């Protein structure tokens, strides 16, 4: 996704681009249920969707269920059930309907029934996990994920979920373990590298944190999160660096990072000025 691409689609949605927007949101997993409901319901009413209708109905259903918009939720589910009476996918939606009504036990029953006939249905497993999470049962969610990962060890999406849950709980060492797993699976994912670097920093492992922030800068030299991360690590390690053999190189690294940041914030208005002032106030380490 290009920067600004999504925003442009949102702006065009009222003048005939609604279908494109909804499609884009599905492919890129953009979570903004209000927009889905607003444009999706309009599309459904216009009755010109053809084969897309069923996908949009499902999308609108999910948004409506999340937002508690009961009429649209019930309408979409009714249409889908009539069209696909024996579909497992629709069964899963029925579970989501129960969830939105707060009937967690009923929902769980539906999910367990699906899993009994189709234990390899990963989406239903994930729904169960999400349900625990949503009803505020974090320990149960973590347990469900760990059971799931016993069978589906390479599912990076779920490793990610587990990592985020550990962060939420404040067990950062465990979270770091999950992100290590994710790095092994996808070593060039910026998001993973950056989150791992942030976790290392938060657990006090500044040296390794700096290495991973450096890696992130190497993969994408214009990424602000990576640059600020490297900048913070360099600051925190400045004293220690002084007594090192390669102290000169570390100074160069910080100089380089700050130059990149300065370049990034030039011409960005008031917020750019704030960042430039902060950078100007940082004491530059003199060569010792």
């Amino acid at each position: 996704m290009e920067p600004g691409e999504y925003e442009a689609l949102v702006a065009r949605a009222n003048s005939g681009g609604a279908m494109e927007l909804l499609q884009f949101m599905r492919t890129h997993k953009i979570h903004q249920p209000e927009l889905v409901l607003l444009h999706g319901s309009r599309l459904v009413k216009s009755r010109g969707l053809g084969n897309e209708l069923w996908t949009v109905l499902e999308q609108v259903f999910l948004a409506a269920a999340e937002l508690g918009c009961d009429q649209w939720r019930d309408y979409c589910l009714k249409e889908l059930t009539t069209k696909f009476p024996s579909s497992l996918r629709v069964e899963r939606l029925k579970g989501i309907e129960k969830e939105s009504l707060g009937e967690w036990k009923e929902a769980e029953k539906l999910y367990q029934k699906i899993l009994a006939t189709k234990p390899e249905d990963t989406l239903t497993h994930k729904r169960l996990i999400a349900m625990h999470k949503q009803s505020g049962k974090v320990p149960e969610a973590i347990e469900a994920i760990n059971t799931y990962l016993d069978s589906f060890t390479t599912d990076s999406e779920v490793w990610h979920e587990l990592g985020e849950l550990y962060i939420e709980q404040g067990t950062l060492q465990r979270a770091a373990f999950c992100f290590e797993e994710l790095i092994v699976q996808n070593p060039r994912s910026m998001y993973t590298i950056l989150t791992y670097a942030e976790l290392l920093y938060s657990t006090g492992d500044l040296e390794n944190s700096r290495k991973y922030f450096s890696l992130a800068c190497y993969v994408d030299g214009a990424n602000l999160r990576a640059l600020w991360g490297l900048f913070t690590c360099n600051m925190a390690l400045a004293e220690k660096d002084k007594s090192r053999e390669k102290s000169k190189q570390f100074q160069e690294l910080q100089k380089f990072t700050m130059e990149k940041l300065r370049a990034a914030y030039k011409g960005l208005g008031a917020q750019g000025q704030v960042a430039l002032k902060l950078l100007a106030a940082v004491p530059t380490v003199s060569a010792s």
Partner: protein
Amino acid sequence: MAPSAGSSSFKGYAFDPKAYAKAVLHGCKHSSSSVVGLLLGNGDGKVLKVLDVVPLFHTHALAPMLKIACMLAEEHCKAVGGMEIVGLYHATGSGSTEMTPVKAIAEKVAANFAAASVWTLDASKLAEKQFALKGMGRVKDEWKAIGSDAVNLSSEALAETSRLIGEMRFLEVVDFDDHLADGRKSWLNESLFKGEKIEKLQID
């Protein structure tokens, strides 16, 4: 930075209408995630004035980016003058109004501003156009609930906030997460309320 306020909590809390609206809109934008932001303002010993807020994160709030965000917010305070970081606001994806998830961050803010306060979004109050932030104030190393009678915000400000939510203006709030993903997006949110009635509403 030297601690500027005494160790006691404030008697009253006054919110600038724009600051309140921005915090609430930020929570509404990411209603299924945990959201956190900083309160900027000043206190004269009796009343704490919340003059502005800085929306920070809607993903996780980990130490390095939190540090940078706070440094930038402080720099911004210096540029504007007459305010500092005085507390936090946050919202949870599950709708719980406990302050536990941000307690660690709150302690850090309190280390610099002793009478810091933490405000949790209670979305159920929004529908009734009531003040939707539940406050906890720092009193002698403990967090104590702030009574709703201590908060000052006009009903006009509440009505305007509710109107902005109805118009889905929360989609336009930019937080520090958004900024880090695309540098051109400004976490200062300069144009969020441009031309709106709320822009002219004054702090009580």
